[in-house]
């Protein structure tokens, strides 16, 4: 009997001493833009669990995840690409890949990480495992002329779609052969400022700054080229000044409709995704920046450009009306829903915290300190096209 007890005890001790196993499905990170830190968070506990330093200039940083959700690839403004292990809570690898970057994406098969760069304009592909450079596609749209690249999105077939701000084109680069990519070009319109791919991976849209409208490319029929939708949504009216460019990534398609920020007007545009016709516009309290659907599509949350960046408007999709307005903090830069949407995390840059709200009753249910927080990225992005 004694022996058996001792044996059981030993087993128990052993179990304690071994590594604690855990999954990654409820983890995430918060970018702390001013100080080059990321804070790792747990969305079940709604608490931070680690803080990592040394990521360089993180203003306008974004992150994508390996498909197992363990590694985050963080793209910094200074061209830094950092691979962070969310379980070991450390930086695994860091390279400076360009002078001035704006974001990145990960391929369908999870093997290639692509960065989009302003200077020198173009995209670069890296081995997701080692961050070794695989290929480069300069955005040379005319001899000797390079464009800033915006709106990079992963699309099926190990391809990436993106838009050229200066070149006015949508490019689709195929990385089936990672070291020898091939690129197709589609005229899009004046000054595309950002892009998105629909949740099914079929349509790529680029919002235009230089004219009213959105360029739409059907990736199932690319030979038809990009066409313009929402043309003249401003109807010739004078545009309001735009103090921050809207972000299309974090698209909202809900109930068969896409919700998009208007440029230069305080409205969210509603488009029927079957016909691509405008079916409505919803007045909101500022120039929308992010227009994001709760994962179930019942609500769409909107934040705003300076000087209205302390506000959030919540649209109820069945009625198409703003049902809740709030002022959750100063400098609300980003929002991220819990994987199934029961709560939403908002970064309040000038309050130095992340605030967490219940999306059903809009009650504040928690907050996390963070220095000048901007982007919030949860591992649930790992399995979504375009994230």
């Amino acid at each position, binding site marked *: 009997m004694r022996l058996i007890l001792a044996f059981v005890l030993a087993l128990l001790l052993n179990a304690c001493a071994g590594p604690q196993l855990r999954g990654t499905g409820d983890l995430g990170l918060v970018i702390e*833009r*001013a100080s080059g830190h990321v804070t790792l968070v747990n969305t079940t506990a709604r608490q931070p669990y680690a803080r990592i330093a040394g990521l360089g*200039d993180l*203003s*306008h940083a974004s992150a994508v995840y390996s498909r197992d959700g363990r590694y985050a690839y963080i793209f910094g*403004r*200074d061209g830094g690409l950092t691979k962070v292990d969310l379980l070991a809570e450390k930086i695994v690898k860091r390279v400076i890949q360009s002078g*001035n970057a*704006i974001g990145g994406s990960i391929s369908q098969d999870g093997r290639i990480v692509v960065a989009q760069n*302003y*200077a020198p304009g173009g995209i670069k592909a890296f081995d997701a495992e080692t961050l070794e450079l695989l290929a480069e596609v300069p955005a040379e749209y005319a001899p000797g002329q390079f464009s*800033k690249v*915006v709106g990079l999105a992963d699309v099926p077939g190990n391809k990436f779609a993106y838009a050229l*701000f200066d070149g006015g084109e949508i490019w689709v680069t195929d990385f089936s052969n990672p070291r020898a990519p091939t690129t197709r070009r589609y005229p899009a319109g004046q*000054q595309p*400022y950002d892009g998105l791919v629909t949740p099914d991976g079929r349509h790529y849209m680029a919002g235009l*700054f*230089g004219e009213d409208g959105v360029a739409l490319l059907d990736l199932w029929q690319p030979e038809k080229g990009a066409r313009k939708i929402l043309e003249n949504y401003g109807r010739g009216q004078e545009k309001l*000044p*735009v*103090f*921050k*460019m809207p972000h299309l990534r974090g698209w909202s398609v809900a109930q068969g409709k896409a919700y998009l920020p208007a440029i230069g007007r305080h409205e969210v545009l509603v488009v029927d995704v079957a016909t691509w016709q405008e079916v409505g516009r919803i007045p909101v309290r500022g120039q929308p920046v992010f227009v994001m659907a709760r994962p179930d599509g019942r609500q769409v949350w909107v934040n705003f450009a*300076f*000087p209205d960046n302390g506000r959030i408007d919540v649209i109820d999709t069945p009625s198409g009306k703003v049902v809740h307005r709030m002022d959750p903090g100063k*400098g609300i830069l980003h929002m991220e829903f819990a994987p199934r949407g029961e709560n939403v995390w908002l970064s309040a*840059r*000038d309050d130095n915290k992340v605030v967490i709200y219940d999306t059903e009753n809009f009650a504040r249910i928690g907050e996390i300190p963070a220095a000048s927080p901007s982007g919030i990225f949860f591992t649930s992005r790992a399995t979504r096209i375009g994230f």
Partner: protein
Amino acid sequence: MSASNFVFGLFLLSTAALGLVRPAIAGEPAPARQKELVHLVRQDCGSCHGMTLNGGLGPALLPETLRDKPVEGLVATIYYGRPGTPMPPWKQFMSEAEAAWIVDKLMTKFPQ
């Protein structure tokens, strides 16, 4: 001489003294306002020009890159914006003198 007059006199003296040390920029904003403007430039201009002003969608705003550009043109760019480009006008949020102060700081060394 009342106490408040005395304090005012001291204030005048000290500003005069400052004026001697370095040429005063017409209408240099008050310190609290300077802090607000620095925050505005780093954070809100930073969304296009980069928080470190190294450039983004908009060009870098560093002494090296601005050196050869006429000051009045830069001040006007900030105050009135540049139509046809994403550079918006900031006149609702600052005076022309404040825009000039920002250009002066951008061309020398922009505070953290």
